[in-house]
């Protein structure tokens, strides 16, 4: 019974993934006939160089970037929710994304450039940016761990996360006030969020790190399930709680940092998708939850990407779309928390 529900959910999410990826391939700011797209994908070429470049160097990288970003942020959210025993935790609401953003801003300024350098092809500079994002995200996670030991209340931890976000944003703004006008402009653009920032050359690093971290989280299903019972039970079941928690938070930090460095601080996906996965599966069991979260995250991000690029008046920022999807779902969850099993 529960297995059937799992199979149906996974099949549906996979089908959606395929359909959304195809839609992202076919629809965009430039109309390319479906037949020509098939020609381009089969290697024959369409006879139109611009179309070839749009498909191979813009749309396909965007599909991969969006799907991986969605999966990464959603798994981050799931790990944070389980680790902090807090259903409203997520990488953006707890300030992990803004921490990564601060790291990015500092590196850019230290390199003497602007945030526009993010899109550059210079291997050394975007690796530095990546390291900056990792350190920034890591710093926020350390702060959260420290506070979570002091304040036991879930709500307080969320408020601390929000405060950390404000603080990092204000530091970034202060940094920007001494930066060039172009830097500020680029920072603002980066803050909108977009899935077109990963070039073909950068893709191996971006995809490689995310896939490794996703595999890492899939291997943690046993301790994650133990943590559903809280630290004391988990420890009684033989789980080294502090080591497990640190490992989970490192994975979270890596996933969030990589996505934030390349795509900007993207809100709501990490918070909302684990709930979508739980409600579709009807379980908190991570054995089923992790794969469903990965797929649902990829689906939602592709949907955002599709909407983003299909506006006749220009690209819509990703961060203008995620709240429209996310807020109603969060409100639904809050209003129905008595009827949703995993809150009780």
């Amino acid at each position, binding site marked *: 019974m529960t297995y059937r529900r799992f199979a149906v959910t996974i099949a549906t999410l996979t089908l959606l993934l395929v359909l959304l990826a195809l839609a992202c391939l076919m629809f965009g700011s430039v109309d390319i006939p479906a037949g020509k797209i098939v020609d381009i994908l089969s290697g024959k070429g369409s006879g139109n160089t611009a179309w070839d470049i749009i498909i191979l160097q813009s749309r396909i990288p965007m599909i991969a970037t969006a799907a991986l970003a969605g999966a990464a942020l959603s798994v981050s959210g799931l790990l944070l929710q389980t680790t902090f025993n807090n259903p409203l935790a997520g990488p953006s609401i707890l300030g992990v994304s803004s921490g990564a953003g601060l790291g990015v801003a500092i590196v850019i300024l230290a390199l003497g450039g602007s945030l526009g350098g993010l899109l550059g092809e210079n291997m050394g500079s975007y690796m530095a940016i990546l390291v900056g994002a990792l350190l920034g995200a890591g710093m926020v996670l350390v702060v959260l761990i420290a506070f979570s030991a002091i304040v036991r209340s879930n709500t307080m931890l969320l408020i601390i996360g929000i405060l950390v976000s404000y603080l990092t944003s204000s530091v970034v703004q202060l940094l920007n006030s001494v930066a060039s006008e172009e830097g500020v402009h680029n920072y603002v653009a980066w803050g909108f969020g977009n899935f077109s920032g990963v070039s073909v050359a950068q893709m191996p690093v971006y995809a490689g790190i995310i896939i490794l971290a996703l595999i890492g989280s899939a291997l943690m*299903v*046993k301790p994650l*399930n133990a943590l559903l019972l809280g630290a004391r039970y988990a420890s009684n*079941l*033989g789980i080294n709680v502090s080591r497990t928690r640190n490992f989970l938070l490192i994975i979270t930090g890596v996933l969030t940092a990589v996505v934030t460095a390349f795509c900007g601080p993207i809100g709501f996906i990490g918070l909302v998708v684990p709930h979508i996965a739980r409600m579709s599966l009807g379980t*908190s*069991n991570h054995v089923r939850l992790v794969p469903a979260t990965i797929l649902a995250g990829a689906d939602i991000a592709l949907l955002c990407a599709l909407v983003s690029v299909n506006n006749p008046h220009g690209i819509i920022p990703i961060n203008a779309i995620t709240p429209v999807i996310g807020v109603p779902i969060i409100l639904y969850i809050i209003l129905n928390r008595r009827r*949703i*099993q*995993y809150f009780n």
Partner: protein
Amino acid sequence: MKENNAILTTHDLAVGYRNGKQQVTLLSGLDLVMEKGKLVALLGQNGAGKSTLLRALTCDERPLNGTIEVNGKDLLTMSQKDRSRLIGLVSTERIQAGALTVRELVGLGRQPHTGFLGRLDDEDRAIIQQAMTDSGIISKADEYMASLSDGERQKAMIARALAQQTPIIILDEPTAFLDVASRIETMRLLQTLAHERGKAVLLSSHDISQSLMLADELWLITTGRQVLTGNPSKLVADGAMDRLFENRSIHFNDKILDYSF
């Protein structure tokens, strides 16, 4: 006889808490013995140190002094994995398991015995089934934890500890949030587990009359921070029960094994 059945022993154990650099000792010089097949109830006023003692025995907090041995092996230096196969815990902590079925929850008890990904084999499933049967929760096996009453949830948590297959089960206030009927049922279940399955069961409780009736042994934390141990009728006869309370107007009657005011 007593030595043969002893499974957990403490020597010169001191428990309390560390407040910065200061140590606050709640109980000290404890030489306690838990035996197979016996239900022990730990009684004491709020703040007397019941939970602190249990947290030390389950290794959730380091004792301030002394040793705890299980089957002659030092509990504090053994690996967490080995420990998880010796002592099962039932506590009153809030858990996020509402969307797990009872069967899944009880299955978590198999974690010390399963591999890296926690996969269950047929033997594990049989043990889970048996644990749910023994705890009287089998009829709700495939229902969500969220749909259970408090008493049923506690049975499921006890089944989870049973599935862990530890010789010792320690329960922190297992009947605290239960109505009277569920309290009695839970206590009877624990008594059966001790007497018929040979488990060494230790629980902390506020319910003195039930502990007197159903426990094989009491550990009493007196107002003078001593721990008196023995079987209930002996402790009542010795007048030890009177030292549980500050209030001198509460007395225990050794004929009816209950207290009067």
